[in-house]
Structure formats: C-alpha cells, structure tokens
C-alpha cells in the first residue's frame, strides 16, 4: 500500500479520535455552565411566576443566548487542552502498541505502518454527560411546574393613621369655632401646632417626642377648654336667672350677681381660650345692678351665646348637651355616637341632674316651718334621723391646675357629719327603747 494512502489512513483515524477527544474537553467545560445557567433560569422562572407573569418569548430567547455564550466561553477555555494531530497519533500508537511508529513516520524517520483496524472508539462517560443535562432539564421543569404562591402587587402605600391627639385637637377647634364666640387666635395656634406635627415624615409621627408633644398640646387644650367651660357655666347662671325673671330679681341679690358677674368676666379673660372682643364687649355691658337697662332680647341673646359656648366646650369632652343617655348606641339626644357616658355601664351620658349651686334656689320664702311628729310610734325610725344643709367645699383654684394622670381632679372635702339612712336591727331596738 502506498505510503501516501497509509499516511492518509492513519491521519484520518487520528483526526477522528482528536475530534472526539476535543468534543470531550469542550463538554467538560460546558456542562457545568449549562447546569449553572439552568439553575439561574429556573430561579428566574419561579420569580416570574410568583409575580403572576407568564414567561415571554424573550425570556427563553435570553436563555438560549446565554447558552450560546457559554458554549463559546467553553470553547475558549478548552483551547489549551485540545488534541492536535500529533497528540492524536501518539494516542493511537499507544493504544495499538505501535511503538511510537506513527510519530516517527509523521516526522519522516520511519515508514507508515500498514493500516490495521482502529481501536475501539473512546466511550463517553454517561454519568458525567447525562447527569448535568438531566439535572438542568429537571430543574427547569420543576421551576415551571411547582406551584408558587403569587404575591400580590404592592398596593398604594397609605400613610399611617395620625395620632388620636391631633384629630381630637382639630375636632375640638372645629367645635369651638361654631358658636362664633371665641377669639380664633388660640384655635389657629392649635391648628398650626398640629400642622407642624403632621408635616413630619410619617415614620416620625409615632416617635416618642412627637407623641409627647401631641399629648401635651392636647392636655393643655383640654385644660383651656375646661377652664372656659367652668367660666361659661358661671356666666350662664346669672344670665339664665335674668332671662327667666328679669323683673323679679330681688334687689338685695343684684349686687351679689354683679360681683359674681365681674368675677366671671375676669375668669373669662384670664384663660388661654378667650372670648372674642365682640363677645367680651357685649358681656361687659351687662350690669346686674342696673338690670332694668337691659332688654329681654339682649339677655336672651347673650344667654344663648353663652349657652352655645358652654355646650361646645361640653361636646369637646364628649358630654352631650341633651338629656341623659345610654353609654352604648346612638345618643337619644343628639343621635351621635360620640357622646360618652360619664359613669360606668348603663349610667348614661351627661352629668347628674342635681348639682350644688353657688346660689340658693330663689323660692322667695321667709317663713320657716318645722316638721315634727309627736307620735314617734309611727315614726319610721332608723330611716332618717336628721338633715342638715352644708355647702360642698370645692377648691375652685384647683380647676386651673394641670393635674397629673391618676390623681383625682376635684378633691372635695366632705362634711364632718355622717348621716346614715339605715340602722342595724340592734341600733333600732336601742333607739326604740330610748324613746319609750
């Protein structure tokens, strides 16, 4: 056989082996990249499904492009390891025990040996090839198949709810604006302070300093309202008296009323919440010593104004101006659910009907009659022994002080006498024996 054909035979055989070996080198570099890209693609697919989007064509196209890039990268990485024709011949002559004859022949130092059947082809390592490919395909299928919970798109971010104190202060300012009685300077100042607090970043609203400032503002506003309410209540009494019996006020009472009125005006002028100059001027015109100079209309108008102001102050504290109501459900007086009861469950809103008044009830009676029962046998002893009249000792100055929480707002001192409306059976037998 001519040397050229044997050379061709051996070189072709060596080239075939080289192609297989070089493909093996390329696969050795490519399969890890394939697995890595498939895992990454799988995670992206899961994320995509989680957001509720179906993978578009571009998604898979990107994967294909990445694979191609990985293939090129693997080709470059395997370049240094590739078998040349010389390496292929050496591999061939080693497997066929040709004593490096092919190498010597290629270099012209020996004749090409006669062709012999080539060795068994190099076999692929199935685990090393199949496992990465199977792993990649499996991961992609898993990513496409496993159920994923779709996360809802993030909705609009709502700012947090404002602290209650700010809303209360603004509600109070709205209530107090209605009677058109007060000087708006203080109300505007409250609103401005709330606005400054509201202008902070929402995440700062519930910071300690912000809450403390809001609470302090609320407490001082409430204190001002209470002071005003007390003053308006003081003012309302003589006006109501004058309204109901303008011509019947005893002359001896008028100086007292005037003195009381002047104190009330002074109190109205002292608080943080002041009346408007117009209202103060109107109220300042009243002189109870010269009450004949006032018309009924004037009195009615002023009394109504003061009443509205008082009611507005009461409503800021949840005190319904109407009659007593239940603590739960709509207020039967004003229909609002905002009215709060003053006591426990079922005690209804509003203050107690009977309150101590600074002035005695004008019943216009100078005659005193004693009530006695000589027949003590019929007396329901043990029910009531005696009565006395005393005025509650209320510290009016304490109303203007800010009290810490938990402390009783109006500590009053009770009378020294202790009255029992019921006696024990032993006490009852002793009294009965005494009076027999």
């Amino acid at each position, binding site marked *: 056989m001519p040397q050229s054909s044997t050379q061709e035979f051996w070189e072709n055989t060596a080239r075939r082996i080289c192609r*297989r*070996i070089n493909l*093996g*080198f390329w*696969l*050795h570099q490519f*399969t890890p990249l394939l697995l890595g890209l498939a895992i990454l693609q799988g995670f992206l697919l899961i994320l995509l499904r989680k957001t509720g989007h179906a993978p578009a064509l571009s998604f898979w196209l990107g994967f294909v492009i990445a694979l191609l890039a990985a293939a090129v990268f693997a080709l470059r990485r395997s370049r240094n*390891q590739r*078998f040349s024709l010389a*390496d292929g011949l*050496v*591999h061939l002559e*080693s497997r066929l*025990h040709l*004593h*490096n*004859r092919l*190498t*010597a022949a290629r*270099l012209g*130092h*020996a*004749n090409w040996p006669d062709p012999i059947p080539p060795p068994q082809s*190099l*076999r*692929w*390592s199935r685990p*090393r*090839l199949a496992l990465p490919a199977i792993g990649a395909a499996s991961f992609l299928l898993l990513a496409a198949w496993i159920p994923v919970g779709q996360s809802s798109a993030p909705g609009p971010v709502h700012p947090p709810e404002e602290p209650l104190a700010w809303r209360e202060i603004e509600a109070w300012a709205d209530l107090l604006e209605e009677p058109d009685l007060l000087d708006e300077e203080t109300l505007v100042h409250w609103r401005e302070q709330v606005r400054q607090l509201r202008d902070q970043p929402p995440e700062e609203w519930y910071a300690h300093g912000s809450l403390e400032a809001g609470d302090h503002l609320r407490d001082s506003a409430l204190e001002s309202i209470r002071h005003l309410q007390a003053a308006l209540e003081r003012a309302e009494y003589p006006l109501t008296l004058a309204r109901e019996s303008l011509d019947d006020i005893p002359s001896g009472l008028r100086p007292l009323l005037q003195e009381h009125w002047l104190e009330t005006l002074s109190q109205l002028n002292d608080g943080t919440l002041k009346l408007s100059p117009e209202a103060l001027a109107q109220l300042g015109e009243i002189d109870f010593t010269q009450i004949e100079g006032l018309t009924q209309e004037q009195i009615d108008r002023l009394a109504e104004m003061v009443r509205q102001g008082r009611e507005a102050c009461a409503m800021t504290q949840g005190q319904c101006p109407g009659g007593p109501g239940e603590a739960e459900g709509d207020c039967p007086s004003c229909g609002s659910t905002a009215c709060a009861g003053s006591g426990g469950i079922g005690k209804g809103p509003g203050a107690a009907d009977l309150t101590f008044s600074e002035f005695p009830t004008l019943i216009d009676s100078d005659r005193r009659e004693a009530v006695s029962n000589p027949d003590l046998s019929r007396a329901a002893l043990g029910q009531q022994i005696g009565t006395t009249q005393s005025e509650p000792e209320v510290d009016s100055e304490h109303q203007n002080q800010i009290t810490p929480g938990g402390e009783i707002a109006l500590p009053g001192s009770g009378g020294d006498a202790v009255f029992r409306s019921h006696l024990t059976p032993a006490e009852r037998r002793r009294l009965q024996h005494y009076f027999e």
Partner: protein
Amino acid sequence: MLQRLQETLNNVLFGQEQLVENVLIGVLARGHILLEGLPGLGKTELVKALAKALQVEAKRIQFTPDLLPGDITGNPMLEEGPEGRRFVFQPGPVFANILLADEINRASPKTQSALLEAMQEGRVTVMGETHPLPKPFFVLATQNPIELEGTYPLPEAQLDRFLFKLEIHRNPVDVLERIVTQREMGAEIPVEPVLNREELDRSCQAARQIFLPDVVANYIARLVDATHPGQSKTAAHLKFGASPRAALGLAAAARARAFLHGRPNASFEDVQSIAAPVLRHRIILDYHARLDGLTGSAVVDQLLQEIAPHNRDLPKTLA
C-alpha cells in the same frame, strides 16, 4: 547479526534471556553493567562468552580487600636496557575490551576509585602519564548480594557510572535440569564468533542514530524528574533521585533496545523496559522505605505505574 549474537549467548546461559538482552543493550549503548547475583549463576561465563562472540579481548579481575589500584591500572616497572634503567609502564588488566570486575564491592574504596576514571573517561593516569584504554571498553562488574562482612559498598558516584544494574535470579527447575544435562563442571563452553570489533562499532554507531521522538524524550525527562522527592507520590520513599546521567542512559538504552528489535525509533515501551535496570541503582531510598523492605526495583515499578507515557490526559467526559 545481533539476533545471532543473542541466540549464541542464550545458548551459553540458559534461562536468562532477559539478562542477555539487557547485556547486549548495554553493550550497544556503550554502557558499563553491574551484575548482582549469587555465586555460580553464570556471570563469568556470560562475560567470557560475550568476549568470544564479539572477538574482543576480555580480562578478569578478582577484587579482594588487598587489591591495589596499580593491580587494576598497571604499574611502571623498572627496566634495565641498553640505554640504562627506565620505568616502563606495564598495563594492568583494565586494558581490555571487556573487563570483568568480580566482586567489586570487596575491594577498598581506593581501589574502586581507580576503576572510576577508566570507566568514565576510557583512560588511566599513572605517575602523570595518561594511557588510553582500548575501544570498545566495557566494564562488567559483579557483586554478591549476601556477603556483607568485609565489603565496601560502592559509593553513589561510582554506581552512577554503571548504565545498568542487572539482577541475576536463580534458575527454575527446568532450566536447572537443562544445565545438568547439557553442561559439565569445568568444561569450556564453545562459543562461535558472531561479530568483530568493527561490526560491533558500527552497530553501536547505528544504535546511536536511532530516532528518539520528542514525546519519548519528554517521557524520559518526566520519569527521571519523578524520582526526586516531592515530584511524585512514589518519590515520597526516596531520599535522592536520579541524575541527568540517568536520563542520558535511558535515552541511549532505549535507542539500543529499539535497534536490537529492528525498529527505526525508540518508543515508550523501550523506555519502560529498560527503566528498572537504569534507575534502580541510582535512586536512594530513605530509612523508612528500607525498613519496609522496599527495593529500588519496586520503586521503579511504582513510578512506571504513576507516570503515564503520554503527558496528555483525556477529558473526564470520555471513559
């Protein structure tokens, strides 16, 4: 011719075909050979038969502890002549084509070193005068592995000058039977001449011309490098590795083997075949390896298993 030479020697020494081949390879590579074996295995007979077959002069020196260097190289002798007295150099037994140095490890180091110059440079210097040795010049030395008392182990420097260290093993029963039936004690074995000196010289030249491919040279270099501690797993047992002279010996012996087998080039198989004779006496085992009973031959075998002939690995994706 060489095949006939090989057959002739195999007819002299029964059952030692590999030994005979290695000796011929050594001769073709112009290397000195150290033969190690028990007494009576035919070492001297082999050398004598080789000398007869090659039609070269062979001399034998029995090394003893009292042997002097001059007994090997020769001494100047005082001679009286018509011109008066003068010193005339009397060549020693080293002046031969083949020198059989029997039991070389029994002579003193001083005497051993006298052989060193002759082996390495092919000449001797006596009293300032250099006398070239005849060509070809081969030293076939023998040593007894069981005699340890009163012996002087060859130093590494001298060991390195031997191309091969060949081990002669005892004969199996069938070979012994053949020896018994075909040999008589003390009888001279007839050996036909096969090659003359010129033919031997041409053969040696031809062996040198055998092509050594680069891949084979690379294999030789990697093998020798792997004998050094830290260069291979096998070398963990070694204290010192082989020298570049060993690599040259491997290359020469591989070429000679290829020539002997009629191939135009040396190959991986040639290197693997002569690796043990070339390397086993040049590597120095450490203390632990010697305690474990490891030998130079075993280490070379491990090395051949560890170092692949072709330094290109296949990809892992191919079985």
